[in-house]
C-alpha cells in the first residue's frame, strides 16, 4: 500500500502540489488526472523521489520513503514515461536488461526474462531482442518501455502518460493490452494521464487534481455518477452517462433470447414463439446465422426462404462487451434487441434497449 501524507511541493512562490493525501491499495490501478499544470506529474515523480517534496511524507507498506536510499527505492518500482526514453545505443534486449543488470542477475536468468517480457507485451522475442530503438515504431517502443519497467517484476509501477505519444488507435490497443497484463500480474499501478477515456478504461480509482489539490478520489463509476463539484462535472463532460456505461459489463443484463433452428417449420414457429416479432435463427451447431420477421412466416415453405442471413459478428455482441458497446451497436443497426454470443459464436441470450435505458436511469438515481 502506498500512502501520501500531506505532500507539498513548492517552487519559489508557486505551489505545484498542495497538502495532498492519498492512499493507493495494493494491486489497484490509480490514475492521476487533471488539466495540465495541476501537479499530477509532480506527484508521481515524488513517489520515486525524482522530485523531493517540500513537506509531507510518503509511505510504502508503512515505510517512510525518505529513509530509503533513492536508487534502492527506484529499483523497487517500475518507471515508464511518455517519451519512453529507451537507450538508443542499446538493443531492445539490452534496454530491458538494464535493471536486472543493476541487480546483478545472472546472464541466463536475464535472457529468459527478456523473452518472457517480450511475449507478455505481445512482441516476438526472436525478432525484437536485437533491434535498436531507432528501428521501432512508436507503439512498439512504448511496449518495450512497459516491458523494461516490468523487468524485475517490481510490485509497483509508475507510469507517466505511457501511451501519450502514439496515435489513438494504437493507444486503445495498448490500453487494452495493459488491462489484460494487469489482470495477470496484479501490480499497484500509479498512472498519470490527461485522457479521461484512458482513465475510465484503466483505473480502479481515479484521483482528479486541480491546481495542486486533490479534488475527488473514487472509483470511476462513483465519480461519473456523483461528481463532487462543478470542476469535476465540467472535467468529465456532458457525456458522463455514456462514459459511465462504458464501465458496465453487459453480463448482468443478458436475458434469455428466443431463437429458432433453421430447420423448424414456419407453422411450428408461429404456434410456439408468440412473444416477439423478431426471432434469431441458429443452425444445428447453435451458431447464430441470421434473423427472421415473424410476420413474414405465414405461407412460407421454410425458415430458409424468408430469413435474413447475416454475419454473426455484425449483428451481435460478444459477452465481454460493455453497455456502451451495446448501445452503439444497437443504434447503428436500428435494433431494439441484440443477441449476445460467446467465443464460439453460440448464442447465449439477448440484450434489450429498454434494459440499457433502465441501467442508465437507475445508476443516475
Amino acid at each position, binding site marked *: 500500500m502506498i500512502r501520501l501524507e500531506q505532500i507539498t511541493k513548492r517552487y519559489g512562490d508557486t505551489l505545484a502540489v498542495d497538502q495532498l493525501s492519498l492512499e493507493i491499495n495494493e494491486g489497484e490501478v490509480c490514475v492521476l488526472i487533471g488539466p495540465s499544470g495541476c501537479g499530477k506529474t509532480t506527484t508521481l515523480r515524488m513517489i520515486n523521489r*525524482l522530485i523531493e517534496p517540500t513537506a509531507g511524507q510518503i509511505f510504502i507498506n508503512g515505510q517512510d520513503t525518505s529513509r530509503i536510499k533513492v536508487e534502492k527505492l527506484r529499483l523497487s518500482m517500475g518507471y515508464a514515461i511518455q517519451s*519512453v*526514453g*529507451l537507450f*538508443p*545505443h542499446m538493443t531492445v534486449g539490452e534496454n530491458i536488461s*538494464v535493471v536486472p543488470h*543493476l541487480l546483478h542477475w545472472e546472464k541466463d536468468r536475464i535472457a529468459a526474462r527478456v523473452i518472457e517480457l517480450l511475449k507478455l507485451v505481445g512482441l516476438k522475442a526472436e525478432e525484437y531482442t536485437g533491434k*535498436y530503438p531507432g*528501428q521501432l515504431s512508436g507503439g512498439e517502443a512504448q511496449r518495450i518501455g512497459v516491458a523494461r519497467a516490468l523487468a524485475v517484476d517490481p510490485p509497483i509501477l509508475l507510469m507517466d502518460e505511457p501511451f501519450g505519444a502514439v496515435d489513438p488507435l494504437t493507444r486503445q490497443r495498448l490500453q487494452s493490452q495493459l488491462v489484460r497484463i494487469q489482470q495477470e500480474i496484479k501490480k499497484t499501478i500509479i498512472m498519470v494521464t490527461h485522457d479521461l477515456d484512458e482513465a475510465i478504461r484503466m483505473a480502479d480509482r481515479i484521483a482528479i487534481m486541480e491546481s495542486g489539490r486533490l479534488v475527488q478520489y473514487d472509483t470511476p463509476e462513483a465519480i461519473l455518477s456523483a461528481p463532487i463539484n462543478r470542476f469535476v462535472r465540467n472535467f468529465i463532460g456532458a457525456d458522463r452517462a455514456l462514459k459511465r456505461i462504458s464501465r458496465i459489463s453487459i453480463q448482468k443484463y443478458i436475458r434469455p433470447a428466443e431463437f429458432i433452428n433453421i430447420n423448424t417449420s414456419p407453422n411450428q414457429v408461429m404456434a410456439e414463439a408468440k412473444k416477439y416479432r423478431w426471432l434469431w435463427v441458429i443452425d444445428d451447431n447453435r451458431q447464430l446465422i441470421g434473423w427472421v420477421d415473424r410476420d413474414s412466416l405465414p405461407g412460407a415453405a421454410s425458415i430458409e426462404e424468408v430469413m435474413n442471413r447475416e454475419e454473426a459478428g455484425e449483428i451481435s455482441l460478444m459477452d465481454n462487451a460493455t453497455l456502451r458497446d451495446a448501445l452503439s451497436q444497437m443504434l447503428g443497426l436500428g435494433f431494439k434487441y441484440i443477441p449476445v454470443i460467446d467465443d464460439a459464436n453460440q448464442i447465449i441470450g439477448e440484450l434489450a434497449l429498454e434494459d440499457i435505458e433502465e441501467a442508465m436511469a437507475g445508476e443516475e438515481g
Partner: protein
Amino acid sequence: MILRLIKLDKVAAFGSVIGLISLLAGWLTLRPNRLVSSPSTSLWGSFGNYGAVSLVVLWLICLVLSLSGLRNRRGLLLGITANAILILTLVLVGFNASRLSEAAPEIARVSISSGVWLTLAGAYVLIYAARQNLQKQRTWYHLISWGTPVVLVILLATGWLNQVSILEEFHSYRLRFFEELFRHIRLFGSGVIAATIIGIPLGVWATRNRYAEKSVFFITNIVQTIPSLALFGFMIAPLSALSFALPWLRDLGITGVGPAPAVIALTIYSLLPVVRNTYVGIRQVDAGVIDAGLGMGMSRWQVFRRVEVPLAAPLALEGIRTASVQAVGLATLAQLIGAFGLGWFVFTGIGAAAPDMIILGAIPIILLALLVDGIMRKIVRISTPKGLIGAT
C-alpha cells in the same frame, strides 16, 4: 539524342578545366643554383613532343568523360585516366629532371613549376569525383585511391625523382628532416592530448552547472579570438618570469621559449573545439533518456558512464579531430618561439629565399594533417554506437 549523350559532372569538369589550364603554364625550371630563380619552360620544352602530346590527350579525354552520359562507367574511367595522368607526370618529371641536370653544372637545380602543381591538383579533384561514383565497387575504389601513392613511393625509393630540387633539398637535410618531423608530431600531439585531458572534464562540467557553462565558454571563446601568432608570443613573458622565479621549472625544461610555451599555446588553442563538442555531445542526449535512467534506479554516475558517455563520445571525438587537424598546421608557428618542428624548414626557407626548402616543410605538414584527419575519422566511426547509425 544529343541530350542523352551529355550529362555534366560538375566536379569532374572543374578538375578537367584545371588540368587543361595547367598545360599552358610552365612545368620545369632549370635554375643556376638553389636560390636564384629563372623563367620556367613550357610543357613542350620540359617533356618533349611525346610527353606533352600524351598529357594533352589525357586531359582532353577527362574533359570529354566529365561531360559524357556514360553514367555507370564514368567514375571508373575518370579514375583510371586521372591516375594515368598523375603517374605519367611523376615519371616524366623524374626523367626530364635527370635529362636537364645532366647537361647543366653540378649546382644547378631543376624545380617543379606551377604547371605540375596544377595538374596534380586537377587530377586530385578528378579522383575525388571518381571515388564518389565508386562507393559500391570497393576494389576499384581502393585501386583508384591508392594507385598513385604506391607508384610515388616506388619512384622515391628507386631514386627516379632524385634530380628534382625538392628531393635534393631533402637529401641534404635528411637527418634534420626526420628530427623535425618527430618534433612536430610531439608538439601537436602533446597539445591535443593536454587539451583533451583538460577539455573533456571542462565540457562535462559546463553541462552540469550554469555558472560553469558561462565561465568556461567565456574563456575558451576569448582565447579563440586571439590571433594564433600573438598567442605564441604571449607565452614568452609569463613563462620566462615563472622560470626565473622557480628555478626547478627550468630544470623541467619549462622556459619562456622552446617547446614548453609552444605546447601550452597549442593546448589553449585546441581547447575550444574539444570543450564545445563535449558540451554539445552531452547536451544533445534526450532528456527523456536520462529521466528514464534515473527513474529506473541508475545512479547519477551510472547514467553518466553508461548512457551519456557512449552517446556523447562520437561528437566529443569529432571535436578532438578538429583540434588535431588545426594543431598540425598551427604547430608550424612554434618555430617562431624556438620550438622547431617542420616550421623550421618553412621559416628558414623564407629567410633564405629558398622555395624548395619551404615546400619541403609544407608538404609533410599537409600530409600529416590529412593522415591525422583520416585516422580520427576512423576512430569516430568506430566509436559511434551501432544503434545510432542510420537512426537519425
